[in-house]
């Protein structure tokens, strides 16, 4: 076993321990500086993971370090980097025990990365739990806030329940295929499955339900609005980014690799889920008056779009839907981070998060209002910004695989999403501010927002480099599938 393959995760784990002990033993260290230390850790791990670009190695048939893993290492590392920076002020003002807070963020990244890297069911499951448990704790981190406690409890109970369902699904699949390895499952499923069809189908349905919970697909989305509203704001952002991204990383690995031979059986379920998710998420978002809940429902709507990428996978079809899904996922996460960081900055200054509170923001903080507007337009899929490009590619990819009807629904749901995004923009630009005082934007937060907005613009105006990277990641996933199909044996 080549233990050096996991160096980025050693760094993250070590760094997490370091952050906790720094907080504990170095009392004079200012609390917000812990955020910068943790951010540096995430960045270091990200940079180190670049070593494995275009490399492919297996860690004891448990984990695969290839371009797919590297893509998610970089992706999650950067998410954690931005979350740590965006948390600094918030944690200092409102939360206790900053050391553990940042340590848990770094640990979540490990869980997410291994979900993407897993080569077999149990490793995937354990990684999923590592990610989830860190997030449960973080959700209820505002110890004296009832809503935060409620959110954490709800998230944990429902999360544990769905994990159990997922595990049951896995056990059924294992039972009929006699292997936990993804490649092995794929090989078995390529053969004759007539005798095991029912148990297999049940297992797949249960796994879809379990993963559907993690990515917040309707009807498994109930926890999302409450968890989003109750969790400390930076954690809301973190959940919306990493829980979804890691969920889809595993989704792709499972359904784009292990279960791909059965695609014709499950893609219609996913297509149905996708429809329900995008319709419900976007329509219910219209009703919201709290910006966290609105973004929660909007993110549910986005999940509906992303599920299209899974639904468009076919046994011998191209890997396009997977690439399009990853592209949209990246665009969504960057945009969502940008939108939420704007909300965090505003909340830090005012302590308010109702949409009505954003009235006249354009007068009080023009930069913030502009950035939030760009992020919202990007979420609604308007051009110049990431959302337009990535949605276009994703919808076209689905249309390529006979899912034009699904793309059509998605397009109309995008129109709906524009409606509620315009509602916020209306507050910021059309209404008079309640207080005339200008809101200062701290320099660090200014830089974070600006960097994210540059990302949103870059993806909207020149997506080729990112798209090439995404293609490399998915081709690592699909080459392995094809190789297994050709030789007929899994490792």
């Amino acid at each position, binding site marked *: 076993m080549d233990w050096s393959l996991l160096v980025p995760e050693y760094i993250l784990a070590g760094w997490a321990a370091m952050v906790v002990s720094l907080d504990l033993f170095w009392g004079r260290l200012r609390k917000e500086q812990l955020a910068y230390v943790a951010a540096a850790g995430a960045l270091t791990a990200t940079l180190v993971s670049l070593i494995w670009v275009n490399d492919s190695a297996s860690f004891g048939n448990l984990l695969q370090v290839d371009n797919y893993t590297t893509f998610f290492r970089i992706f999650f590392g950067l998410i954690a980097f931005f979350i740590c920076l965006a948390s600094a002020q918030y944690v200092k003002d409102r939360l206790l025990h900053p050391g553990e807070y940042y340590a848990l963020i770094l640990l979540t990244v490990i869980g997410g990365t291994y979900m993407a890297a897993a080569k077999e069911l149990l490793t995937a499951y354990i990684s999923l739990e590592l990610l989830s448990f860190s997030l449960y704790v973080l959700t209820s981190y505002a110890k004296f806030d009832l809503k935060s406690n409620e959110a954490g409890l709800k998230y944990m109970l429902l999360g544990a329940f769905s994990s159990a369902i997922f595990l049951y699904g896995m056990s059924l699949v294992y039972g009929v295929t006699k292997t936990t390895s993804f490649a092995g499952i794929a090989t078995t499923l390529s053969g004759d499955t007539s005798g095991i069809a029912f148990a297999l189908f049940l297992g797949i349905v249960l796994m879809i339900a379990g993963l559907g919970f993690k990515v917040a697909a309707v009807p498994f989305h109930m926890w999302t609005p409450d968890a989003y509203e109750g969790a400390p704001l930076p954690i809301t952002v973190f959940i919306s980014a990493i829980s979804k991204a890691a969920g889809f990383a595993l989704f792709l690995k499972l359904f784009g690799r292990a279960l791909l031979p059965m695609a014709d059986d499950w893609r219609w379920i996913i297509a149905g889920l996708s429809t329900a998710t995008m319709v419900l998420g976007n329509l219910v978002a219209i009703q919201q008056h709290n910006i966290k809940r609105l973004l929660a429902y909007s993110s549910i709507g986005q999940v509906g779009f992303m599920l299209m990428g899974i639904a468009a996978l076919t046994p011998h079809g*191209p890997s396009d839907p997977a690439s399009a899904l990853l592209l949209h996922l990246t665009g969504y996460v960057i945009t969502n981070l940008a939108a939420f960081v704007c909300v965090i900055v505003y909340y830090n200054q005012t302590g308010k998060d109702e949409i009505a509170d954003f009235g006249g923001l354009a007068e009080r903080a023009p930069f913030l209002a502009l950035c939030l507007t760009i992020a919202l337009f990007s979420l609604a899929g308007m*051009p110049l910004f990431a959302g*337009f490009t990535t949605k276009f*590619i994703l919808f*076209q990819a689905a249309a390529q695989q006979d899912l*034009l009807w699904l*793309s059509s629904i998605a397009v109309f749901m995008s*129109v709906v999403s524009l409606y509620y995004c315009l509602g916020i923009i209306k507050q910021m630009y059309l209404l008079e501010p309640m207080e005339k005082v200008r809101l200062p934007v701290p320099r660090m937060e200014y830089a974070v927002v600006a960097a994210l907005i540059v990302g949103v613009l870059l993806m909207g105006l020149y997506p080729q480099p990112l798209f090439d990277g995404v293609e490399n990641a998915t081709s690592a996933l699909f080459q392995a599938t094809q190789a297994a199909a050709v030789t007929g044996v899994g490792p």
Partner: protein
Amino acid sequence: MDSGWLLFATIAVPLTTALIIMAIPSTYKQQVRWVATAAGFTMFVLSVIIFALYNYKEGGLQFDLRLCWLENVAFLGKDGITLHLAVDGISVPLVLLTGIVIFSGCLISWSIEYRNKDFFILLMLLVSGVFGVFQSADLFFLFFFYELAVLPMYLLIGVWGSSTDFGTYVRTKEYGAMKLTLYLVAGSALVFIGIFATFVEAGKGTFDLPVLGQVTYSETFQKTFYPFFMVGFGVLAGLWPFHTWSPDGHVAAPTAVSMLHAGVLMKLGAYGIIRVGMSLFPEGAEFWAPALLVLGTTGALYGAMSAMAQRDLKYVVGYSSVSHMGYVLMGLATLNPIGVNGAVLQMFAHGVMTALFFAMVGAIYDQAGVREIWTFGGLAQRMPRFVAFFAIAGLSSLGLPGLAGFVAEFNIFAGLFKTYPLFGALGILTAAITAVYILRLLAAAFFGPLNEKWAHLKEMRLLEQAAGAILLVFIVFMGVWPAPFVDRIAQSVLALPGIG
């Protein structure tokens, strides 16, 4: 020809200007105006150059420029999505129109005091989108720019627009802005679907329009998906019954935006039907032509009737836009060279005319603060130039020979009588109704004894006169010498598949 950068410049200039204005502090209002106007002038000059340099004897797509944007990924093959800019004889008059209207729009907007920096930034975004649509020969980018032109509308209308009080109820600017944005985006959703289907059906791995145009699509496919383009783009072109955003939106919008929107953006819709719908799906166009004809005629008649019933000056112009865009759609539905020619001519003629209308309505509204036709009276004694400009726009609108409107309408009606005489007659009836409401309006508001209430009104400001004069020159120019337009358009219309 390597002059494709000219086209690129028309898109790059407004975008760069937007960035420059962004860097100017918001208290430097005068500097912002100068920069924006300089940009407007540059675009005007560029568009005149493009119009003049277009070689109509050669015809076809000219000023070709390709910049690769996304290729060899996923379902995209080589040159999958390119920023492919090119113009043909149908687009050049519209590029010229955009140049004219944005320049005069910049001049008109000098009077904006409230956050004029943001206003000009959004206006520049809008116009770069418009230029982009007229010049894109790539389906993805055509759509990209199309949405880009819709993007700033909500804020432009919502922040700088005006609400209308009807006594019993108020049409707020927020209402107009939201209605316009949602209608247009919903329309573009249909276009979106059409594009997906076309790309899959063509199976070429590229969004390049000339390549997609070479594919022969099956008849069923054409009949199924042509309506997506016809209605989707039609919404923006004021296709009845999806026109209701237009009067509300245009009335609520600030002057320069009404000018651009009614003058140029509505043409994007009609242009989209030609460039995408009719070019790619000739059989679909033929199949659906009667429907387009009926809807277009209904729109023309309905718009004219509604205009007659309005008491608000700007609503009259708003509904007359619906009516005139109805002519354009009727012309397109004839599918014969002369009718389609007329439609494109009408796009230009209506563009300059309606821009002049809205500029003048804005000028009077700035001074008087109301737009109620019947409260005015005898304004000609106080503001003769204003009335002259308004009257000429009105006369062009009702099709007086020697002005742009006549040339266009004559062609459309000639085309209609060739294929559908009955609808030709209805078209002429519409022109007659137009004459009624325009002349009645002129008589009531501008001529006759002076209403003493308005004795304090002064002549328009110099900039408004300048803006009006630019538009006026082109109305008269096209009216007396339509040859440069007809030469360019006719060639490219004949080259469209299914026209003849």
